[in-house]
């Protein structure tokens, strides 16, 4: 199986992902991840490449906890996201790196808007993906969201999925 991924293939995956998130189709979104996936949002004062094993992140989910995050977000008792906020995920500047074994790094710039209770918050930064080609199509092995912010201010939370 070819490990090469074209930019348009990568863009299709990222646009599909953004659309599922904006429509709150979270179980379908989760299905885009491999069973050994990680979903990471580092704290904003950490250097690029820092691992969550010895540094405090905002989010460092393995697949099990990511699944639990999705389960949580589908409940009305996830108060921060019930009633649900409205989101719009914009993905741009998609670049595909050289394959490393069966994984290919893909980077993209993002802007995500979240609106709730009359307030719109903007999250922006860079996605760093590791993408794996499987029999079922391209799947996300890791998604790391590095925010270009001084902190989660004025947001106060990252309770949506970026």
């Amino acid at each position, binding site marked *: 199986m070819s490990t090469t991924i074209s930019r348009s293939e990568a863009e299709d995956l990222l646009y599909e992902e953004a659309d599922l998130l904006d429509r709150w189709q979270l179980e379908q979104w989760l299905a885009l991840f491999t069973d050994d996936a990680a979903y990471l949002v580092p704290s904003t004062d950490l250097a690029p490449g820092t691992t*969550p094993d*010895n540094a*405090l*992140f905002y989010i460092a989910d393995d697949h*099990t906890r990511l699944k639990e995050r999705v389960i949580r977000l589908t409940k009305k008792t996830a108060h*921060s996201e019930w009633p649900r906020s409205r989101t719009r995920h914009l993905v741009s500047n998609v670049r595909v790196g050289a394959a490393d074994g069966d994984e290919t790094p893909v980077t993209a710039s993002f802007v995500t808007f979240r609106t709730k209770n009359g307030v719109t918050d903007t999250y922006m930064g860079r996605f760093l993906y590791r993408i794996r080609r499987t029999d079922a199509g391209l799947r996300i092995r890791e998604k790391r969201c590095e925010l270009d912010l001084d902190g989660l201010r004025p947001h106060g939370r990252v309770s949506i999925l970026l």
Partner: protein
Amino acid sequence: MEREYDALFDRCWLYLGHESELAKPGDFVTRTVARRNILFTRDGKGQLHALFNTCPHRGSTVCREERGNAKVFQCFYHGWVFGCDGKLKSQPGEERYTQGHKESGVGNLTPVPHFDTHAGFCFVCFDADAPSLFDYLAGAKEILELIASHSDSGMTIVPGAQQYAIRANWKLLAENSVDGYHAVTTHATYLDYLKNMAGGLVPVPLSGRSFDLGNGHAVLEYKAPWGRPIAQWVPMFGEHGKHEMEAIYARLAARVGEEKAKRIATHNRNMIVFPNLVINDIMAITIRTFYPVAPGQMMVNGWALAPNEESEWARKYRLFNFLEFLGPGGFATPDDVEALESCQRGFANAGSASWSDISKGMGSAEPSYDDELQMRVFWTRWNQLVNGEERAR
């Protein structure tokens, strides 16, 4: 809010940082404390300094980095150079100043009126007439010491600060941080998550007490069913984790004795040090401070504190445990943020719906961890200082 700055933040002892953040000579951090821009340094002799980060020449911010290591600090505006102790070392065009200008001290960075530490926790106070930190902390000293004694070799702040904001009055977070009553409903999804995880919980029912520590400080101490890196094992930590945690506990017991070790390991602690330092020793340890920037908005800083000597495994699980509950991306804190913002919106009706009720457990000889004694302790002190004649002591 201005009355609160006058009566509280300009007078009380406030948390600046932890000594581990400045491990080596020359290490520094810059930090906003009660709207002041502070440069916190360790000089070449190992001495800590809390300095106003303002050039004594014309007022520019001297150090504009968040952290680092430096031999000197140079103000970029006119080029004055300061040592890590804040003393002026050189100034371009020095010959045009009156003789003795540099030696007189007028060119040094200004130290804060009071700086002191207790058990590794560093505090500042901007009131020259303030009581000592020792007296101010009252019963909170013992809890700080208890938390510091998690380690054989000293505690350390883990890299990475959770900096966030909440669109709510800062006092709501003071209440929420020591609120043992809200978990079952506000954090229903967190408790669901632990139940879903194979071995996320042990059969330890939530139970415990709250204590008035004096001077507006309060603590809850209680047992809970979740895992604690020091040292309440849950099956989710695995067999390897069991051995690690037995070893951690054995070392702890050998150092502090069985009784104290049991208290440290099996009891959770949520503490507020008046007015705005929270140290929660729960599924991990978090340190949190928060300041109002407007009546309906606060800035929050959160850190993770951990024993220096813990193994890679233990550090990883500690942080994993931290993030499942704590912080703006956790399974619980975002719902606290939502609750506080919801209260703030509710207070729009304060003219007609005027009360916030914190009477739970009032008059009880043994206030439970999920009563509201700790809020009454906080608010009583707040009322004495903001509305009364008394000054912070």
